[in-house]
């Protein structure tokens, strides 16, 4: 569904991505592992169109995405749950959800409202807080809201950047349950994670990004056998 080929993205003179190649299969959960600074968020932003790569291509459902504005990319079916700017803090929970569906709002208000109800069913805590300012929600709730908002765009591909970051283990479980449910519903998910333990439980395919390049590609089984990953993420290094 998503083919990333030979992507080079730079910040001024700093080359963050140096020739990244990977594929995300339709309907699967693909996970990108890697240390801090490896370029994982840069890759997410490049796919979402926020950053322009210097060279390379990103093909989504056989259409070239590089050079398109984020607006067109979202309209094309890719939604991003970003790492550290989760919610519009000064808008209510409900308004945040509507925000995710703005591209569709002019066409079908009824369908958007139905989607909001569906989100509330799936995330009852959000319904409880629907009129509260999103900035006052807890970390886990904000993460949930960010995921729900991204889903409001009815994406074919969901990009998630470190959804478990800074959350308590119990909440992390909840979030990954949600990821499993989305997968069961047929949503394709491309996940960036440092928490390899949790990722191993849900993802079908793994990549390792190190210093701007993909240095490993394999199944969960192969991940468990790989020494480098073992030491860095599963051994005494562990997760955050």
């Amino acid at each position, binding site marked *: 569904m998503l083919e990333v080929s030979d992507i080079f993205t730079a910040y001024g003179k700093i080359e963050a991505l140096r020739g990244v190649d990977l594929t995300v299969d339709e309907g699967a959960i693909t996970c990108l592992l890697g240390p801090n600074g490896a370029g994982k968020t840069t890759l997410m932003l490049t796919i979402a169109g*926020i950053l322009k790569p210097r060279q390379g291509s990103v093909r989504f459902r056989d259409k070239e995405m590089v050079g398109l504005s*984020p*607006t067109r*990319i979202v*309209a094309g079916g890719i939604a991003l749950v970003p790492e550290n700017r989760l919610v*519009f803090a*000064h*808008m209510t929970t409900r308004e945040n959800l509507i*925000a995710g569906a703005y591209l569709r709002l002019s066409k079908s208000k009824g369908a958007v409202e139905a989607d909001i109800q569906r989100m509330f069913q799936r995330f009852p805590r959000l319904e409880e807080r629907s009129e509260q300012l999103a900035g006052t929600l807890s970390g886990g709730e904000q993460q949930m809201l960010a995921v729900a908002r991204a889903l409001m*765009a009815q994406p074919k591909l969901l990009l998630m950047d470190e959804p478990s970051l800074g959350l308590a283990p119990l909440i992390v479980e909840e979030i990954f349950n949600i990821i499993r449910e989305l997968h069961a519903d047929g949503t394709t998910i491309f996940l960036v994670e440092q928490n390899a333990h949790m990722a191993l439980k849900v993802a079908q395919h793994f990549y390792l990004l190190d210093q701007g390049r993909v240095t490993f590609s394999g199944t969960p089984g192969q991940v468990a056998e790989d020494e480098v990953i073992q030491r860095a993420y599963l051994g005494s290094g562990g997760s955050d």
Partner: protein
Amino acid sequence: MDPYLVSVFSNIGMISFLALSAYLLLMVGEISFGQQAFFAIAAYASGIATAMWGWPFWIGMVWGAAIAGLAALLVAIPTLRLRGLYFSVATLAFAEMVRLIFEIFTYQVEIDGELVGPDGSEGFRDIRYVYDSDISALDYMLIIYALLAVVLVGFFVLERSRLGSIFRMIGEDPLLTEMQGLNATAYKVLAAVMAGVIAGIGGVLYAHLTTYVEPKIFNVMLGVHALAYGLIGGLGTAIGPLIGVGIDIGFLESIRVISGYRMIVFGGLVAVLLIIRPRGLLDEAAVHWLRTRWRRGRHAGG
């Protein structure tokens, strides 16, 4: 009504347009030091229309506001892609250029044996349409407030609309807004044009009330004041900037006793206010609080 009060209220009304103009841009997260340029452009354009081309007042108003909006569009397109403070300085540079151009701009025609029209730094006199039409000062004040009411209704509608939410989203987090698939820059340009038109309406009203405009008036002081009104009154609602104008002009007028020390006192007060409430009296949090109270009050069968 006491003519002095009419004059004060008319001033408050006209300056409110300028304050609302700066406020609209603050909604999308942009700080403009230059809205006075559109005030000026519309003042001159409409003055030329009514005093020199003989157009009726309302056509002159539409003309003036339209020219201001067009100018805003032309400036917004190259400058809104600049980040933060770069944009702000660009607005300042633009506004000063406009003022300085008016200092040398001369265009006069002979009417009834006299030269009428903008004359560089001498200014533009005899924009007498309103007086020649026997519109009283009180009537004019009502016209000002009628137009202001229309603009306020517009803001009211905006704040409850999809467009208004998008504006606020952009003001809060343009990047996150882009991630929802919305073109932040396009919306900012729209806001800039709307802001230019609003400032323009104020400018037209100003020119025709005072009958005389000179470039000196449209300086950076005016522009920063426009911003300050919103920051004092509050950025959570369109009423905020109006409160700011009321406080400033009302304060200035009523405390004539300390007229020599006005800025010292006022400046100090505003600085302290901004420490306590950096987004003004009626900031977003206050407005949200008021709205929840209002909603709760209604639900309680009030």
